[in-house]
């Protein structure tokens, strides 16, 4: 084996508040492994993205192998393995949003933020130089009746036009 194993220099651990939340949520599941998704979300909220240290910490916490955690992290596009902006903007581009001109919204965002669209394996491409925003396309956000929609971190914004997008960004 030519490659060296990764050395985790600063181990990750939940802060007091997240630890409390974890203790509360772990009780809701029959086995620890079942709490994988909420635990990872919690960890991602604290660390910004899933680092090897986070994977190792979660694996130890849930008594599973690191590979199981890596498996889940790479399966779901909502977990990031590289740094993202403070605000992650997800633009829905599935059919109803596409028919309601999501492309206009997307192009407006691209121009306004002066960035490309991130891909699942290259988030840096869609992140602004100041590290404030990450722009990405996503599949259905389950709000077809109010298309086109975008999601900024955990909040959904509906019936968008370029003007409304400006408003949303100004209010962040």
């Amino acid at each position: 084996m030519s490659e060296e194993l990764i050395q985790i220099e600063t181990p990750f651990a939940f802060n007091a508040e997240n630890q409390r939340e974890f203790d509360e949520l772990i009780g809701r599941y029959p086995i620890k492994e079942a709490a994988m998704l909420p635990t990872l979300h919690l960890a991602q909220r604290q660390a910004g993205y899933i680092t090897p240290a986070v994977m190792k910490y979660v694996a130890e916490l849930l008594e599973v192998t690191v590979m199981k955690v890596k498996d889940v992290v790479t399966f779901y596009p909502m977990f990031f393995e590289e740094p993202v902006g403070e605000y992650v903007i997800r633009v829905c581009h599935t059919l109803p949003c596409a028919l309601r001109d999501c492309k206009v919204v997307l192009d407006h965002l691209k121009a306004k933020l002066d960035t490309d669209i991130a891909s699942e394996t290259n988030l840096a491409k869609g992140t602004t130089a100041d590290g404030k925003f990450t722009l990405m396309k996503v599949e259905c956000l389950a709000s077809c009746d109010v298309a086109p929609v975008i999601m900024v971190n955990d909040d959904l914004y509906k019936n968008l036009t370029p003007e409304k997008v400006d408003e949303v960004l100004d209010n962040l």
Partner: protein
Amino acid sequence: MALVKLNDLEIEVEDGTNIVEAARQHGIEVPHYCYHPGLSRPANCRMCLVEPYGPIPGAPPGTIGPARQLATGCTTTVRTAPPDRKLDDKYDAIVQTDSPRVKKAREDILEFLLVHHPLDCPVCDQAGECDLQDYSYRHGSDKSRYLEVKNVPPKKDLGPDVLLYSTRCVVCTRCIRFAEEVSGTGELGLINRGSHDEIDIPRSHEGVPLQVLDNKLAGNVVDICPVGALISKDFLFKSRPWFMEKANSVCSGCSVGCNITVEYKADGVYRLKPRFHEDINQHWMCDDGRLGYHYVNSDDRLQLPLKRVDDELMPTHWADALTVIQEQLSEVAAEDIVVIGSAQGTNEDNYVLQQFAHDVLQTTQLGLFGQLPGEEHKFPQFTIEADKNPNTAGARTILGSANGNVVLEDEALWEKVSGAKVVYLVSGAPERPLEDAEKAALENVEFLIVQDILPSEVTQLADVVLPGTTFAEKDGTFTNSTGWVQRIRKTIDPPGEARVDWEITQQLAKQLGGEMNYHFAGEIALAIAENVPDYADTTHQKIGDAGIKLA
């Protein structure tokens, strides 16, 4: 027992047998990738689809026909049905494995599996022993309809001996299940999603591993990989499988006695693969054994007898070496001679050796030498034993089998050796280091005869060195730690003038006027069966490939 109608055959199988196994028992192949008899069954490859028959809903009672959906043969088991649920009044199950529907399903599944496959058989190590290649030939379509761009995931280094050519992978997950269930180490998993699925070890986003596939059973994932995705670095680009000859043998790496297949060509041993034995190693073997054969092919092997001239070991010829030994042996009294057998040697080697000691030299002082104990490694479904000799149990019994023989080991042996004038030591343990006390004892010996395969600390002290053979160059039997007597078989010829160990001992016996005239190892096994009480059944013929467990 369940009565099953399998295609046109009426077969009886045990309740709970799955259809793949039931068919295999009767010579019918149901192709499969993800199913492996030693692992759990996720039924994810869909290759083993078969067509079960049953009552047709809505039709008059007693009418049977093919089920609406095909079923996976690996997870569909047959069992005895209650009398009112029999099909055609007598069958417990009716299954078609070659109906047009099944054939079409297989062809379609193979088309999907080949979507991202690079079709690089000409440069793939697995070609010739590849399930994807074989099934495509037998069950696949003769043309491809796929015109789009193929996924090209990278080639990856998973561990000290395992490479992953991700492009060839069909994601059967056998390797993942092996690492979870058999070795219990869980280094492997799937990354990404859907058609981008890849087998991998945990890595950072940049690809630096957090953990590597370095457990002592890791090599087995290469064996169970049905395609050329997981490849052993040790065997990479060494040989095409069809150029190698195969012989059923037993691993000499430890006292477990894993059943193996030795694959070899005239110029040496190329690889060892585990061979199924239900009670000993199931489907597996450890990497220590698997990769531990290299000493057989070593350029350093002893090829000629050596004798000490002016404090240096010089090559000589057999007749001279034997004469030198004869001179020394005829001058000392029987009680000053110690004959030491080897736990690395076969039962046959040790039997001839003790016969030589007892009948010719008339000494009952025997010893047992072998590899130093290592570490025991326990896995959920496998144990690597600490005793690194394949035949400790057998050598101990056989050496002590003649009337009045005493087999000394460890401290008692070295104490005896330090007071002896002539010692005949059969080693055969590669790279065996000598402890200080052992070294001191051997240095005290006036005339030391060593029979070994490689230059070692032991041969350095010898006055005469006789070149012996490894497990790959002789026939014989090993007795493992649980009392299984199993056969090893000759594959390649010994290097140079090296000879099979029992032949050397017999030659020496003849030189000293003894009467001994064995022609082949099986003949010695007959003598063992006659004279060693526990081994009454252990003729080579009866042992066969399955082995015999001593009572």
